[in-house]
């Protein structure tokens, strides 16, 4: 998955859970949970969406990395193979 694809997957996953949040307005290095006002259930659903959209295997160990835009993008691009 290239950075653009990862970014799209991330934005779509977040939109599915928090449609009121403007993805481009998020501070990429700040906590995603706090910025998007996600509770633990929301966050789980978000990770689930992200796993589905990216095809990446994501577990609880990845949660800290997934809690920021930058961290999530890094994780997605390294975890997934490039999709044509």
């Amino acid at each position, binding site marked *: 998955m290239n950075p653009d694809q990862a970014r799209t997957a991330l934005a779509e996953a977040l939109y599915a859970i*928090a449609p009121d949040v403007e993805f481009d307005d998020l501070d990429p290095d700040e906590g995603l949970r706090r910025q998007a006002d996600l509770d*633990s*259930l*929301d966050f*789980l*659903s978000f*990770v689930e969406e992200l796993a589905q959209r990216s095809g990446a295997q994501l577990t*609880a160990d990845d949660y800290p990395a997934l809690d920021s835009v930058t961290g999530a993008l890094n994780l997605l691009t390294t975890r997934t193979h490039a999709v044509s």
Partner: protein
Amino acid sequence: MPSLGADMDEGTLLEWQVNPGETVRRGDIVATVDTSKAAIDIEVFEDGVIDDIVVPAGSQVPVGAVLAHITPSEPAAPESQQPEEPRAEVVGRHLEATKEKQPKQREPKEEKPRQKRPKQKAAAVSEEVTAPRARSRMVRVEAERLGIDLATVHGSGPRGLITREDVRQAALHGRRVRSSPYARRRASELGIDLGLVAGSGPGGAVRAADLAQAPHPAPPPAEAPASAEAEIRSPARVETRSAEERSARQLAMRQAIAALMARSKREIPHYYLSTTIDLAAATSWLRARNVGKSPSEQVTAAALLFKAAALACREVPDVNGFWLEDHFVKSDAVHLGIAISLRGGGLLAPAIHDADTLAAAELMGRLRDLVSRARTGRLRSAETRDPTITVTNLGERGVESVLGVIYPPQVALVGFGKVVERPWAVDGMLAVRPVVTATLAADHRASDGHRGGLYLETIDRLLQTPEEL
């Protein structure tokens, strides 16, 4: 009826902003029209006096239908084609619409329409509104159950579709209460009986503004309809709604919460208890259980806390049930109400039925399903009707402790704060442990502090053996 968009072929006249005999000036807002997407203010195109109103508020008419007649105040506009007839008709091409607050789209100069047979047009219009449709099987079943002839029911849904609420209102009054669909929707949300509202609109029609003077609605739990499978509409379906509808819904929800919470504080003598619970056993059990599991299979601390709260009700039933007619009615089943905050504001507390009988993983699944449906507005009325005790998990929002307000007619509300690491004495030694503050707000009419304390103590005990939850 002006066309307010390429995809619009009919519109509902929500409210007239003017009465016959009133003088209007070009640009005045004369009416509000509801399309399937938004409520839109209609401006008049010329100066004059409203002669008569053809389409009453609440009616749905096709684009191009005559809404009202205007007698122009001046003989002629500069254009030469100005018709000689004194009466101008307020039809689509005579009107301009402003969508929300967007800049006005002025239509290019054009011919004044010459509608030769306004009377017949009006007749066609009334046919349109008295031939409502009820495609939904649910609606037909409801009508049959209540003995309502659908032909006599006014449809307030899209394209004149009869909704269940229309059937209920019809059953309530045996006749149609003249009202705007907007007012009906608001009334439905607020639990207001339209038959009791004095209408200020044309012909005594109830307008949304009249609802403010309406008799105080009964609170939602007592008001919930009896049919178990009915889907209730909640303000949560935000993304499919217009901004105006959204704010109306939010206002309605705010008012419902206000009425219920005020009643709670007025009627229920609350007492509050609080205890701090060591969650070391629970969190390490969860960590071991969740390792390697996909997000969809994971169980969070909230599920364990809720399960413990439900299970403890069996041991201390004094907090599980309703205060009805001056006595406590204990509930054998534990239907755990979950306080769910909605994105964009507001709160729902639907129930997970028989939560005490569900394994933690199952409870977790139900919790996720319930939260997602609450937020997308797809709750069933049974879920909102019958929680026997409610929990709130404000710890998700970072607070360490929450002392709640009881949902009448329930008698207790359990609160969990944030799970935090704290110095903790264990066997005479100091340790750092994850702890949570559990609180109980309970109705002193139904129980005393001693029993309430026992309830929190039971939750604590149950959480020390998470594998049994």
